[in-house]
């Protein structure tokens, strides 16, 4: 009898022994499954990958993987990840964040990470609410979402992360849905493979504070067109879609940051010569 088909590592090999403490039903379980599946697809090994995060429900992910991990300061996952990638370019660096951590506290870092185009995969689990701190509106919360903490809603226009990413220079922009872990895994794998700063926004329902988001599974649909390499066209499509187009939306060709100007190669003798009176 033929031997069955085999692969080097499976998703479970990228999971740690820590049990997640997210609420049952949370989309982040699915994102964790997608990340581990993607790493298996990419045939990486846990020691070749670092997962960096900030603060929030989604930022717990590094502890649940068997990769190197850094659970950093609120909103500061991208600077930490940028430093790590520049210092250790051989590592595959994934950055995990949420809509509060990534777009509010870390909003400025988001712009500049896109601009710098360091080879990172930035995965943002967007549930339009601060879950860990009990349900405050976040930058992507709808203006009319009424809750005990924001009666009548904030009345504020939502932040539009995908367009901001395009305008700031991200080299890869995609939207995924946590309800499809395998689809998410394929997009994350493509984001990791694509050179430069890859931004994956994952719609990940918060079943505790936004139980109505369970209906997202009926709203999402594949993006009707293939990704473009024209940021203006991509921006127009994203600005006019219904927010539930799933897939890779933009793939740019901008070369990733590779260390900037080369350091001077002067020897000690050259320096001594320069200072000689």
């Amino acid at each position, binding site marked *: *009898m033929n031997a*069955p*088909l085999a692969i080097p590592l499976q998703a479970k090999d990228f999971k740690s022994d820590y049990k*997640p403490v997210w609420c049952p*039903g949370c*989309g982040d379980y699915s994102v964790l499954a997608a990340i581990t*599946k993607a790493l298996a697809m990419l045939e990486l090994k846990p020691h070749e990958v670092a997962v960096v995060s900030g603060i929030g429900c989604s930022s717990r992910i590094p502890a649940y993987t068997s990769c190197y991990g850094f659970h950093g300061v609120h909103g500061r996952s991208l600077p930490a990840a940028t430093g790590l990638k520049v210092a250790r370019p051989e590592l595959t660096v994934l950055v995990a964040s949420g809509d509060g951590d990534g777009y509010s506290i870390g909003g400025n870092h988001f712009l500049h990470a896109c601009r710098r185009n360091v080879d990172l995969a930035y995965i943002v689990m967007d549930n339009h609410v601060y879950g860990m701190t009990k349900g405050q509106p976040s930058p992507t919360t709808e203006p009319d979402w009424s809750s005990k903490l924001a009666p009548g809603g904030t009345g504020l226009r939502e932040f539009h992360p995908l367009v901001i990413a395009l305008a700031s220079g991200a080299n890869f922009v995609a939207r995924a849905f946590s309800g499809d872990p395998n689809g998410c895994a394929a997009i994350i794998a493509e984001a990791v493979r694509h050179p430069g700063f890859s931004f994956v926004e994952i719609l990940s329902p918060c079943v*505790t504070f936004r139980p109505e988001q369970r209906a997202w599974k009926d709203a999402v649909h594949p993006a009707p067109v293939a990704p473009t390499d024209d940021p203006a066209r991509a921006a127009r499509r994203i600005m006019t879609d219904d927010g539930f187009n799933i897939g890779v939306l933009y793939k740019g060709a901008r070369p990733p940051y590779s260390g900037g100007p080369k350091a001077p190669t002067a020897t000690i003798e050259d320096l001594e010569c320069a200072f000689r009176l």
Partner: protein
Amino acid sequence: MRIPAIEQSYEAFMSRAYAIEVEAVERYTQFADQLEQHNNSEVAAVFRKLAEIEGLHAKYILDEMSWPSLPVLPVPYASNEPEGPETAPFDSLHYLMQPYHALEIALRCEIDAVNYFEDIAAGASDERVRKAASHMASEEREHVSLMRDWMKRVPRPKAGWDEDLDPPRMSE
């Protein structure tokens, strides 16, 4: 259902069937862990039992095939399609859910599995694949009956079962 090219051989079909069962075992185990984290030990126990039941199917396939090593699907195949028919979605859970809800989830999965294997049996050109898929479908039908009987033995949740006047918003 059109059989994917990879399932046209008997070995590939059985590898696929094994992967489906293992994925279901893993998911039910994850569900049990989640409910345990949230002190819902009654439902956690139901999910542990469901994992055990699916594990019997996986064991049956292993015994049948006598593979020299455990089968796993090629990664692109496993990740470019929806999860297996017996794998319940992560968003099925609620921390206040009751055993009846867990069994409802399992019943849906078992029905999906019956349909999946029946479709493969109906479209198979390889006789061994057809027989194996028919056998799997009959096993899943037994599980459907098992779930329906089990559901009769647990209380049906009352309206408002998910209302919590003192919600445990933080889990740690």
